[in-house]
């Protein structure tokens, strides 16, 4: 059967041959069955091999100057450590007995195999020139009340900006555990588990213990991801089945629509294994997206099948559905894949992986869906023709009347909404809250906030100073002293440590400590202050994530400025990456969104061989995006993060699908001899109800993201849903209003 047979003539859409897998399945059912069974079986077998990303720094792995500096710094650091931070919190002030227990705990942790050093209040010592306790540990072997009333205050009085590891009220303590990461991530995970097991022997003693730090956060995220993936997909499948049942009112037909989509999702999931890529917080939403998109295709095909002429055989009706609707479905898959692929323009490993798997996943799922449909529809739907409950989703007649009588007013109103939305969007602020990448109920999240509040933070920033090597002039030492004091003045609430503070602790602030003085420091700590070649001195600031709140951001910027002014050649560290990288990523995502928009629109215009679509499609599809972006003021306090920006790009790729189906129907009706207004009315009425059904279905499917413990996954889902609903309105009202214009039709 050809397009001409269906009466569409030369005005039908070109699906770039994407309907052929479906037609092939109809013509060669046995071969197609074998291919599909092999594909699904291998996909199922690969599911057990899916792994999850537990390397936080990869999220910020671009080629920006900040990332390059940090990598170069880490390579030059020599001994690298992975630091776990234990937050010990109690409702009561720690007494001597609790402190002795906690000291035993720190020692037990220090005895673990890969643990290099453990820094805690118990490792603190008085300066060697201290009048009362020269060189003595702050906490002696027998901790008594006097230790807390005499020694601890004496230490604090002469602390010289050494890290405070116990809060002034004596209820909170932090312990830093430096672990050797040389044995790989798996061994690091084991050590993390060993640390938690060791600590568990000490819980229930009136205090809570929480392990945090970059790697602990990564492991927590992985745990959340695994649970999230299962929940999102199971719930997604259930909602999909429910919605399909609601639309078709028949379990068999609903299963015909849902099963291919689920199998398509499974196959898309297996791409992670095929490419050897891990799942991340970002890519965790891909399966749900692929599921709802596959289901939308399935519903378009099944609905058309049910409405197809009853005098044709089941096989002919399936073929007709694939010829008429397949190209539009193929094109929608292609535009969505383009939106995914556009994300690859961002200089970031995880986002590029998201782009690859998302783009390919959508296409693979489309092929699986259309081939399965070709099989299942004739077998299972067969003679079940006629009305479905999808007919309930009627477009209100008012919309048709409004479009035909007030098209200019609609365009003016849309222009005003667009202008207001652009104004709102321009007032959003790039922001990246790292803690938001943790599950909302995470103890680590709360622990991080407590550490920031009490100790200033635990992320390290290094301000590097080139040394001239002329020790006789003392110039190097003066410059290092000035840098240390300037940074400390810029961040009075943060701990700032350098060779200068160590020299002050030694009681010799005028001279740089020599190697003998520093011999007690483990190399992993010494290299934090002085490079292995001795040519670079480093001032270390312990800071919170920069965008924890406005105050932390201001302080961070002040520190960077002050360090630069005081002669630091560069400031590096995870907080620096967190401060600058997101703005770069957001900027690149803006470019990728524009690229996705232009390419997808050009492709659709080409598919319909209709140049005017280059303009017509941009307006109703960009308007929902800008409106959703502006709505960030309501849903995210006006803060624009990379996830939100990426959601807009993907949303565009999906939102344009309705436009494609609408224009496809409009062209089909025009080809059947209807005038413009009649064709628009039919498209609004017939395709409109399918658009409503699929939008509701996709939105309902995406509602599962709201069950995610990850704020970013929820935000992603909310933004997509908002875009789809506004895009549906734009496609039902603004798009037909534009199509009525003479310049468009010419």
């Amino acid at each position, binding site marked *: 059967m050809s397009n001409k047979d269906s009466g569409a003539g030369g005005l039908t859409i070109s699906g770039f041959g994407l309907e052929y897998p479906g037609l092939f399945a109809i013509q060669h059912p046995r071969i197609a069955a074998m291919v599909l069974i092999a594909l699904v079986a291998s996909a199922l077998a690969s599911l057990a091999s899916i792994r999850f990303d537990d390397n936080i720094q990869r999220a910020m792995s671009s080629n920006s100057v900040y990332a390059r500096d940090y990598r170069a710094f880490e390579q030059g650091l020599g001994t690298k450590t992975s630091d776990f931070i234990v937050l010990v919190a109690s409702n009561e002030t720690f007494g001597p007995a609790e402190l002795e227990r906690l000291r*035993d705990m*720190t*020692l037990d942790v*220090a*005895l673990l195999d890969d643990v*290099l050093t*453990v820094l805690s209040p*118990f490792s603190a010592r008085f300066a060697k020139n201290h009048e009362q306790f020269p060189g003595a*540990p702050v906490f002696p*072997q027998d901790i008594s009340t006097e230790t807390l009333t005499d020694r601890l205050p004496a230490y604090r009085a002469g602390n010289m900006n050494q890290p405070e590891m116990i809060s002034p009220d004596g209820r909170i303590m932090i312990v830093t555990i430096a672990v050797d990461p040389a044995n790989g991530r798996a061994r690091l995970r084991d050590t993390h588990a060993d640390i938690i097991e060791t600590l568990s022997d000490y819980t229930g003693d009136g205090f809570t213990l929480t392990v945090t730090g970059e790697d602990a956060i990564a492991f927590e995220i992985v745990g959340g991801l695994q649970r999230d993936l299962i929940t999102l997909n199971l719930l997604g499948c259930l909602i999909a089945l429910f919605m399909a049942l609601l639309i078709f009112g028949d379990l068999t037909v609903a299963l015909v629509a849902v099963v291919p989509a689920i199998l398509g999702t499974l196959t898309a999931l297996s791409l992670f294994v095929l490419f050897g890529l891990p799942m991340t917080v970002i890519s965790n939403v891909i399966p749900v997206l692929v599921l709802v998109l596959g289901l939308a295709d399935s519903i378009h095909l099944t609905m058309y099948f049910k409405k197809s002429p009853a005098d044709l055989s089941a096989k002919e009706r399936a073929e007709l559905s694939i010829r008429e609707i397949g190209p539009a479905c193929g094109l929608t898959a292609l535009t969505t894949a383009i939106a995914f692929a556009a994300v690859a323009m961002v200089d970031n490993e995880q986002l590029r992986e998201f782009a690859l798997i998302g783009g390919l996943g959508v296409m693979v799922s489309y092929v699986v869906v259309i081939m399965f449909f070709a099989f299942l529809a004739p077998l299972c739907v067969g003679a079940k023709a006629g009305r479905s409950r999808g007919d309930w989703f009627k477009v209100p007649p008012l919309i048709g009347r409004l479009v035909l009588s007030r098209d200019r007013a609609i365009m003016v109103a849309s222009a005003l909404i667009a202008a207001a939305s652009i104004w709102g969007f321009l007032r959003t602020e790039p922001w990246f809250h790292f803690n938001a990448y943790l599950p909302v109920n995470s103890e680590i999240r709360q622990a991080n906030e407590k550490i920031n509040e009490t100790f200033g933070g635990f992320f390290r920033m290094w301000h590097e100073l080139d040394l001239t090597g002329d020790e006789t002039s003392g110039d190097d030492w003066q410059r290092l002293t000035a840098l240390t004091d300037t940074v400390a003045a810029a961040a009075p609430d943060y701990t700032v440590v350098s060779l200068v503070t160590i020299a002050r602790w030694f009681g010799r602030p005028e001279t740089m400590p020599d190697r003998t003085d520093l011999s007690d420091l483990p190399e992993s700590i010494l290299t934090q202050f002085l490079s292995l070649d001795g040519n670079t001195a480093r001032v270390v600031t312990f800071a919170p994530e920069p965008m924890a709140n406005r105050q932390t951001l201001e302080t961070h910027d002040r520190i960077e400025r002050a360090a630069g002014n005081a002669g630091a050649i560069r400031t590096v560290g995870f907080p620096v990456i967190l401060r600058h990288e997101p703005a770069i990523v957001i900027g690149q995502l803006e470019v990728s969104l524009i690229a996705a928009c232009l390419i997808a629109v050009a492709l659709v215009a080409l598919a319909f061989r209709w140049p005017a679509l280059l303009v017509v499609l941009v307006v109703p599809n960009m308007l929902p995006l800008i409106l959703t972006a502006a709505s960030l003021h309501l849903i995210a306090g006006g803060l624009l993060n990379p996830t939100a920006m990426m959601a807009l790009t993907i949303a565009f790729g999906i939102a344009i699908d309705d436009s494609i189906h609408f224009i496809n129907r409009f062209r089909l009706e025009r080809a059947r001899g209807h005038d413009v207004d009649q064709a628009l009315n039919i498209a609004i009425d017939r395709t409109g109800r399918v658009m409503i059904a699929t939008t509701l279905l996709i939105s309902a499917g995406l509602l599962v993201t709201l069950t995610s413990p990850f704020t970013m996954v929820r935000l992603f889902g909310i933004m997509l849903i908002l875009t789809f609903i506004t895009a549906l309105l734009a496609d039902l009202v603004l798009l037909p209003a534009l199509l009525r214009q003479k310049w468009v039709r010419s």
Partner: protein
Amino acid sequence: MRKLPKTAIAAIFALCPAAPAQAAEILETLDGKWSGSGWARHKPGAERETVRCRISGIYRQTDRRLTLKGKCASPGRSGRLDGYVEPVDKADTYAGRWSNPFGAGSTMVHGRNRGDAITFRFKFRDRETDETVNGIMVWTVRADRFTIATGDVSGGKAAILSEIEFQR
């Protein structure tokens, strides 16, 4: 090696609980995993600091050699403990190599068994003063526990530097 002052030996022995153990079985008794806790001081006169250790003893029947390996930690410091001891031809005497986790480095040790205890002597170079220090280490062994005490016996004065009791 300079002869140890009797007061030093007496002081260190005073720390160690007396218990019956056959000299010949001493090394074999130490086979297995041990957890230790006690104290150590940085140098004579310095304050005591808490120490905890976790070690494994492997006794080889063929040459009657005991190898001890593990890790000890005090606040802010930790180090590997590594060494072996084996009987020498002369009755009740032992020789081996011992690595102190807190900086004495690897050194040869020579010991003599008396009752349930083995007293080892060794020398090491103090990193701060660069002087040679005469050290003494006493292992007191019982069936389910043993104690390692060390001391500095240089200059005729005894200063106990650590005492750690191990249990299975």
